[in-house]
């Protein structure tokens, strides 16, 4: 099913695990090298910057190829552009398979660009030819994204897949008249909850180890969609504009109080759950959504002026973070302020820096580039290691 060599992917996973253990000073250099030699990986995965360059250049090549193709058939372009896009999609897809199968590219920039361009032009062509509406578009995207995610385990594709699934349910519901429209928020919330639980179950299966990155992204998207489908602002403004509810300025929506409860309670619930389960993704989402509470309340009820809120929030944040820093100086309840090496699920190391474990220099390559806190603030990066 997956296009990449799954033995190598498995070996890569083991290497990553070993690298994490190395960063936590559990393994020494010799052990890491031994593991790396026992679990070979022959993917072509260049440095991140080369990946960016290859992505840009491949995109340029593809866009101009399509342009050249269009130029050849300039006279009858409007009739054949749909078919041409599909043809082009298959061409790029063939190139993608070639790069992955024959050239062993994995996250090289070239394969990313080919995957996205072929998926987008396949969608564009199909949608144009079938003159698809909202629902049909969502279904087309769903099918393309499903295939791409299963075959290439692309994280962003996973997110697109999930969003298109929500889109399908959204547009199906709206077809059932006023009642359908009224229950849309609850349907989306239910789907989000079900998907979140399913994904968390699926993460534990060994089969899904290759898709672990996709699953993390989908569970993150599910947490967000669960909140935003119950958020008062989203529900009110969406029903106003999309469903033409024509609410007056201060008029509330039916069951407004329920959505206010959702708006305020869900982030706090996430925070408590995240701390209980030590789920860093959930904690981060919760922190983000606290801001969403403030924005939503401020939008409808002007309790204080914006600058007063900013100042108070600033002071609060500084006090809280200062307090937590002092409090967690020595680890408490399994939380620490100290920087342990990047964790496996969320703070995924760059694969490139993992492979560098072979040529260890005694310091962690992953933590050097992005610390904006310390003396290496700004300036594009801390050192000349790029």
């Amino acid at each position: 099913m997956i296009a990449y060599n799954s033995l190598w992917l498995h070996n890569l996973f083991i290497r990553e695990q070993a690298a994490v253990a190395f960063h936590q000073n559990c393994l020494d250099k010799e052990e890491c090298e031994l593991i790396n030699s026992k679990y070979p990986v022959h993917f072509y995965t260049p440095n991140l910057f080369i990946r960016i360059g290859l992505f840009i250049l491949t995109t340029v090549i593809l866009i101009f190829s399509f342009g050249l193709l269009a130029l050849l058939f300039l006279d009858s372009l409007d009739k054949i552009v749909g078919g041409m896009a599909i043809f082009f999609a298959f061409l790029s897809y063939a190139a993608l398979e070639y790069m992955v199968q024959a050239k062993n590219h994995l996250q090289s920039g070239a394969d990313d660009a080919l995957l996205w361009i072929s998926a987008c032009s396949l969608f564009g062509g199909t949608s144009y030819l079938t003159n698809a509406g909202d629902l049909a578009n969502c279904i087309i995207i769903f099918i393309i994204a499903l295939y791409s995610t299963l075959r290439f385990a692309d994280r962003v594709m996973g997110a697109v897949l999930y969003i298109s699934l929500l889109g399908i349910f959204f547009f199906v519901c709206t077809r059932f008249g006023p009642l359908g429209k009224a229950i849309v928020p609850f349907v989306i919330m239910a789907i989000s909850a079900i998907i979140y639980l399913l994904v968390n179950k699926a993460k534990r299966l060994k089969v899904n180890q290759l898709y672990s990155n996709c699953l993390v992204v989908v569970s993150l998207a599910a947490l967000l969609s669960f909140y935003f489908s119950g958020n008062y602002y989203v529900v009110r403004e969406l029903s106003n504009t999309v469903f033409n509810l024509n609410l007056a300025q201060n008029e509330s929506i039916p069951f407004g109080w329920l959505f206010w409860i959702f708006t305020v309670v869900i982030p706090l619930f996430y925070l408590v759950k995240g701390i209980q389960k030590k789920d860093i993704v959930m904690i981060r989402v919760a922190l983000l959504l606290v801001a969403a509470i403030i924005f939503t309340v401020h939008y409808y009820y002007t309790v204080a002026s914006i600058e007063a809120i900013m100042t108070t929030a600033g002071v609060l944040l500084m006090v809280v973070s200062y307090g937590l820093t002092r409090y967690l100086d020595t680890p408490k309840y399994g939380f620490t302020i100290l920087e342990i090496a990047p964790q496996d699920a969320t703070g995924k190391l760059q694969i490139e820096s993992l492979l560098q474990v072979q040529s260890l220099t005694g310091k962690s390559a992953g933590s050097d580039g992005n610390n904006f806190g310390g003396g290496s603030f700004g300036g594009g990066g801390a050192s000349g290691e790029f």
Partner: protein
Amino acid sequence: MSITVFEQLHAEGLISADAYAKIKLNKEKQLLSVHWEIKTLLYLGVFLLSAGLGILVYKNIDTIGHQVILLFIALVCAGSFFYCFKNKLPFSTGKVAAPNSFFDYILLLACCTFISFIAYLQYQYNLFGNRYGLASFFPMVLLFFSAYYFDHLGVLSLAIANLATWLGFTVTPLQILASNDFNSSRIIFTGLALGVLLMFIAWVTSSRNIKKHFEFTYANFGTHTVLVSCLAAMFHFSAVYLVWFLVLLGMIYFFYRKALQEKSFYFILIITLYAYIGTSYVVLNLLEQVGTGDLAPLYLGFLYFIISGIGLVLSLVRTNKKIKAA
């Protein structure tokens, strides 16, 4: 970490029993680091507080009065600098770590408030009159001093940006004397000079071993400034753009050798992009000149982008290999 993986590795004899026990213990302790979360909150707090205070002051300027605000800014600035001087670790030409995790933020606050202080004085009281150069000169000196004395890369970036502003200011008054055609050419030459200067400082920094970790920041600013100036020169002096294209190529070659030497993927990427923009400009210009009214140049243009794209992909892949092998 997945404990089953290490169980297997242990069974295969790849890791010692000692290491396995350590990993198991770590896994059971399940220590979760909230380092970056708290840092982000702190940074957000600093940002919100300063922005909120800024708006508050702006809205109430009639009731507060300028002197009070200036005094307040001066107090914050002085207080922050006082804290930094008191808590800093001894100076050295090598890398000096911050004494605690708040030090860097407080130094940044001190520097930012100092810039605001000078700007406020100039704006409200016209302290330096029309000698705008002085208004950016003092902050620049202070910023460079702080960057080296307290060892702060962020402040160094601010200082370099201020240097550019200062040069811009010292250049632009001359503009009034010159006729309009020279306006942007002066800026271009200043940019080139600034870029070369920064590259020179970068070289001195690393060869003399004075705060060697500052080298990347200087080289980064320098490379971008030089190459942007070269491109600007190509676009501006359209009569002799081929000459400037040769200058650009020369610079690129120099930076390419340097990037290979330092094994820097980042510099390889940016010089590739700059070179591509320059070359494409030349090619499109030439195609435009041979334009015969039909679609032939258009076809050639499209073909150029496809072929050059493939060529660059191959060369990037090769360079990547070269750096990794080195």
